């Protein structure tokens, strides 16, 4: 899942980016409002975490502008302002969630996961495709009641595909949602990781779950 973090207070920005990356998110980070707006307009994010007071363009202003452009990414606002009026203004400007500083990292992560679920119309905290089970909160994967160890990137790839289970997902989409802006990779790296994943979650006696749709992309699911 790809997240944009816009926070101007350096210590908080650094800790959060470390925390979010370690939690498996592909993360773009900036401390400046103008830059934040540029990121949000140019990329597709699963969640945008936005500080309310920013140099350059104010957080609420960024929110209004990206909503004005029809960008649907869920937005979570971080703020030190905790009055009801402040929350209402934030939510009415198009925010999906609101978190008052100081907050617990766990809560931020849980809220981001919830926003991701909502984005993919997924209500279940843990997702299942046939006998494959993914628990995003614990970042654990089981196949036929057996736990499977995945690397960070493999997990991110599988989570994204399962989130969109039953759909044909283009390579570019996958690439966009699991790689950060600065990554020096090409989209054929996706094919490589699909290979790794197949080796780990598929095997003799198990139904194939990851399907290649020629010329379009990949799909996770049981083919009928």
């Amino acid at each position, binding site marked *: 899942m790809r997240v944009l973090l816009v926070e*101007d*207070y350096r210590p*908080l920005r650094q*800790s959060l980016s470390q*925390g979010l990356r370690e939690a498996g998110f592909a993360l773009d980070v900036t401390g400046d409002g103008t830059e934040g707006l540029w990121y949000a307009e140019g990329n597709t994010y699963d969640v945008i975490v936005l500080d309310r007071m*920013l140099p350059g363009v*104010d957080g609420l202003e960024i929110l209004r502008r990206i909503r004005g452009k029809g960008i649907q990414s869920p937005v979570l606002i971080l703020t030190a*302002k905790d009055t009801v009026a402040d929350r209402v203004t934030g939510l009415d400007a198009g925010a999906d969630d609101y978190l008052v*500083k*100081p907050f617990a990292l766990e809560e931020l992560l849980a809220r981001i996961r919830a926003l991701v679920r909502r984005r993919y119309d997924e209500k279940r905290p843990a997702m299942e495709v046939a006998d494959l089970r993914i628990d995003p909160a614990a970042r654990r994967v089981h196949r036929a009641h057996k736990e499977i160890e995945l690397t960070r990137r493999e997990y991110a790839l599988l989570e994204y595909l399962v989130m969109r289970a039953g759909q044909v997902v283009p390579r570019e989409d996958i690439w966009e949602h699991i790689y950060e802006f600065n990554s020096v990779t090409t989209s054929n790296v996706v094919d490589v990781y699909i290979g790794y994943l197949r080796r780990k979650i598929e095997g003799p006696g198990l139904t194939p779950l990851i399907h290649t749709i020629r010329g379009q992309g990949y799909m996770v699911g049981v083919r009928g």
Partner: protein
Amino acid sequence: MTGSLRRRMLVWTIGAMVLLLALFCAVLHAAIHHTLTRQFDESLLATARVFCAAVEIDPEAGKAEVEAGAVGAFETPEASDCYGLYRGDGSVVSESSNAAGLARFARVVGRKAANEGEAAKKRAPGTKATAGDPENGRTETAKKPPADGPAFGEWTAADGRAMRVVALRFTARSDAGDSRRGGPVVTEKLILVMARDATALHRELGVLGALLWGLSGATAAVAVGAAAVVVRRGLSPLEAVAGEIARIAPDDLGARVASARMPNELRVVTEQLNALLGRLEEAFARERRFTADAAHELRTPLAGIRAAIEVALTRPRDAGAYRAVLGECLGILTRMQSLVAGLLMLARLDAGQTGLDADDVRPVEMVEAWRDRIMDRLSGKGVVFECEAPPQIVCRANRQMLTMVLGNVLDNAAEYVNEGGSIHVAVRTAGRSVEIEVANTGSRLTDEQVAHVFERFWRADAARGDGHTGLGLSLVKEAVEAMGGSVSASTRGGGVFAVILVLPTQ
């Protein structure tokens, strides 16, 4: 002034009214009483004088006698008057049948005459005597020996009737005709006491008095009611205002008391009250904003510390990583500490708690002391630091506080100066004060923004940089004002922003 205004007004109004009415009534009553009694007395006296004229001395007998006609009038059944005629020694010459007891008036008058006579003999001859009886102030009585003047009194007759009495001393003579016949004129001092039934007079006086006092009482009662109504009516706007004020909730300082339809006296009060409410509202709003801002400023670094520690704890890390987190947290804490110190200082300055002892201070020394720290911070940015301060200039200030003030102003200049720019400090005397100007290049503030630089937590771009609290210049302003000085800020061409501190020299 305590107690109820209404009660006070009522008591005074009613008290004054009742007192005046009573006084008026008493005077009127006395005047009527006096006039009626005097009329009665004069008529009685006239009758008495006529009677006197009817008394003559029989020269042969040498005895006084009363003409039968005069006496007859007293003996008719319907006669209400009675009389007694007495000699100086009190013996009876003639008395009407119902005159028992009248003699004592004669004795009183006789004794008085005797005393007066002796007193007159002792006095130097020719001295004019004064009338003994105030009832008897007329001129003709004054010419006579005072003892001869009529004396009036009250008497209850044997049959219980209230009588008005006059006692009169006069000289009876033998008939003029007798003297013409050659006999000597015989005279004798006699006392006539005449009484007349005064029941009617007393009844009239009683009725009049009752009428007068009754009317006054009724008037007073009505006046009390009227006063109560008038006072209540007069004070009703006050109660209306009190009600309006009472309805103002503690969290509704935006409310105002409507003063448009008030009487002038009250309008002054309500306008002052509204002005007070306005000032309170402003102060509360300022306070609320300040608290909210302060909370905001403290929450952000707290969030930084919490996130740093939580991220560090999510998995085992090496010692270097923990050390980095601890260093980061310490840095945040240090800035929080200076923010809290600044807030505390502001709170104390607000409360006027800082007892400031002033010294003669050389600003140039302080600027020099800060120069190295500022230049350390700006190393590598190619910033020029110029100081144009004659060392002999001395101002009157609290050393510690002025150090803090200059530190904050220079810090601010260092924060915003551009790479390759300059910070320029100038100290100069201006009349009885010293001006310290700190200017830096690289400012992007507009004139409108400059107006806000001394506000707490104000920043040009509404977001915190890295560690600057936004409290610095507001602290500078309050501290300088606490030392009796003033501050101002301005921008000049070329991106120059200048803060000017004015401090007293004595």
